[in-house]
Structure formats: C-alpha cells, structure tokens
C-alpha cells in the first residue's frame, strides 16, 4: 500500500498538478506525520517542506514531535507562529465573548473545551454540544451550549484552521509546490474538518484511509513511537479534548470496524458477533456514522454554480 500511495502522490503532484514538491502542515499528530513521511518517500525529502504552525493555545509537545518527525525523514521545516495573526482576526476575543455568555466569569486564566456525548452505542442520543470551563483552581463547570454561543465559538475557533491553510498556500505558491491535506477518512467523510481550513488542499493522500489504517501505515513507515502513541486531540481549544469527545463519540477501533462492516453490507447481527457488541449497539453505530456523513455533505461540495 505504501508504495502505491507514494506512486499516486508523485503522479498527482508532478503529473496532474505540475508542481515541484509538497508543503505539509505538521502538528506532531499521526495523520500529518504519515502524510509528510509518504511525501518524503515519494518525492525525496528535499522536495518536502513541513510547516509547524503553533498558536498560544497549542499543546507544547506538538512542536517537539513535529521536529522529531522532520529529523527522522530528513525534510526541512519552517516555524510560523500564528498567534498574532489570530489576535488580529479577533479569534480569541470573539470566542471568549461567546463563552462569557454562558460563563460571565471566564477569562484568560480559564481553559475551555467543547464535547459531545460519548455513549452513542449505549443509547439513542442526539449529538449536542456541551461547553466545559476550568478555572485555575481546578473548578470545572459544564453547560449545554445554545446555538448562538456554539456557532460563535466554532466560527472563531475555525479561524485557526483557516489561517493555517492561508499560511500553507503562501509557502506552497512561493515555491510552486502543492499543499497536502492530512485528513483521514474518518475526518473527511464524517466532516471533521473546517471548510477551506484544514479541508483546503491540493491533494489528500490519506482521505480514503480509516484511522486504524493510518496507524498501521505509521508503524510501517517508521513514524516515531511518541507520535504513534499520542492520543489524537483537536489541539484547537485551550483545554485538551480528544477527537472522540469533541466529535466522533466513539473510539476509532469501533468506529472504523463498524464503518467497514456497514460499507461491506455486513449485517448488524454478524458485525455484533465479531465486535462483541449487541445488535442494537451496531445499529446505533451504523446510524450515527450515516447521519454524520449526510449532515456534512455540504463541507465536501464544491461551490454551487448556476449553469
């Protein structure tokens, strides 16, 4: 699979896009690490540029892990701290203003995160968003978000992904290289990306791969262990939140296995046996994945035109 992927990346970048190399946003996470490693293998490390784009709320280890990756695969990196750009766009100020509608005492000494229910196999539940804040004494409060607060928090936070996309294209266009998107199939098809943010790219070499396949590829390619073992987070909010808590509601193993089963028309009864779940749990899992795919179709659409 790795060789085939590399051949495709080479053909897409040189043949289809007519570009000389690849620019990859590297976060120290497994997806961007696998993408950068594949590009280095496909094009040669001299034709890959890894861009690290931390901001003031990024996890400290992100940069360390990204540098370790670059060292392992021999490609060049550039550091672009996007905090001042985000300040200029009002990212933090607009987001915090929305948070204060629910928690008036919220200030820069607090951390915050958004979560969804994670018991989606156990019972029928709607995906709704809860805002959790923690003060510096460790006191935690949570409230369900009304739509106006949720939408403003997300719209402000999405500025992070959109500014990163802008930064990647600056570096790519300067070199006449291509921007490589790093989303996997779970993210791409269920809509866990920002339109024209991390969803904005010239090619997406792992958008057809389940997360568990990305892990397998990472091990095969020799991605550093610390990156492989790191729990996937959103690295978007000031409080750490896993991708399962924020969006998927399910661990990657069960999600990918259920999705594979669903795509291959495996009956809930059969899937239940293999996965040691009840039939009802499998049916809920199938339904949840289908709903997310349908609800986020607009994210994968090109702009609508009148013809």
């Amino acid at each position, binding site marked *: 699979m790795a060789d085939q992927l590399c051949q495709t990346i080479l053909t897409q970048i040189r043949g289809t896009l007519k570009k000389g190399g690849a620019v990859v946003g590297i976060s120290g996470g497994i997806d961007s690490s696998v993408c950068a490693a594949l590009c280095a293998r496909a094009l040669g490390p001299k034709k890959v540029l890894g861009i690290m784009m931390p901001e003031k709320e990024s996890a400290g280890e992100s940069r360390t892990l990204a540098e370790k990756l670059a060292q392992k695969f021999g490609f060049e990196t550039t550091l672009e701290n996007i905090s001042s750009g985000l300040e200029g766009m009002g990212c933090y100020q607009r987001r915090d203003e929305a948070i204060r509608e629910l928690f008036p005492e919220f200030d820069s000494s607090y951390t915050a995160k958004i979560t969804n229910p994670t018991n989606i196999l156990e019972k029928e539940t709607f995906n709704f968003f809860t805002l959790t804040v923690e003060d510096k004494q460790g006191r935690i409060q949570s409230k369900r978000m009304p739509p106006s607060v949720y*939408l403003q928090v997300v719209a402000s936070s999405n500025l992070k992904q959109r500014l990163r996309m802008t930064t990647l294209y600056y570096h790519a266009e300067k070199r006449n290289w291509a921007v490589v998107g790093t989303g996997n199939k779970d993210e791409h098809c269920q809509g866990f990306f920002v339109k024209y943010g991390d969803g904005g790219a010239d090619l997406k070499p792992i958008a057809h791969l389940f997360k568990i396949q990305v892990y397998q590829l990472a091990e095969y390619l020799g991605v550093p262990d610390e990156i492989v073992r790191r729990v996937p987070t959103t690295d978007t909010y000031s409080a750490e939140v896993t991708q399962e808590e924020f969006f998927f509601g399910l661990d990657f193993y069960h999600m990918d296995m259920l999705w594979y089963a669903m795509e291959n028309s495996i009956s809930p009864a059969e899937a239940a046996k293999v996965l040691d779940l009840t039939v009802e749990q499998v049916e809920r899992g199938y339904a949840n994945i289908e709903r997310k795919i349908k609800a986020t179709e607009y994210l994968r659409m090109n702009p609508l035109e009148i013809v």
Partner: protein
Amino acid sequence: MAAIDQSAVRRRVREFIGETFLVGNEKDKLNDSDSFMQHGIVDSTGILELATFIESEYSLTIEDNEMVPDNLDSIDNLAGFVARKLG
C-alpha cells in the same frame, strides 16, 4: 391547571421546523411521526436550535439527559414531551 393542547404544540412545532429547516411545502409532507434524525431534517446544530425553541416557547428547561430521540425526534414526540413537562 389546564392540560396543554398537544395539537397546538404539533402545529407550532411544524411551523418552526418548516421555517427553520425545510424548503417550500416540505413541512406539509412531514408526518407527525416522522423521525427528524432518519429524515436528515435536524443535525447537531439544529437540535440545539430546536431545544432552544421549545424551552423558550413553552418556558421549560430541557435537561441534558432529556435530549433524547424519545423526547425530541418527531412532532409527536415533542408534543408528548412538552405535555409531560408541563402536565
């Protein structure tokens, strides 16, 4: 206290769903028992809007553990839920 008129709740909810999530005369084709989730009418942002509407319209509070399809996932379910909350 008079029991809430569930037909009136159904009409008001149908109006809200039509104005907020549907196009043209789609709201007239929606059956009272149709699941919003299964018909792709309401997504995760939409459910917040629906919950906020019900809370505001009927001056009640929906607890997090009440944010379940049995209570909110069709016009019928919503009418029954509102009646139970206010009954």
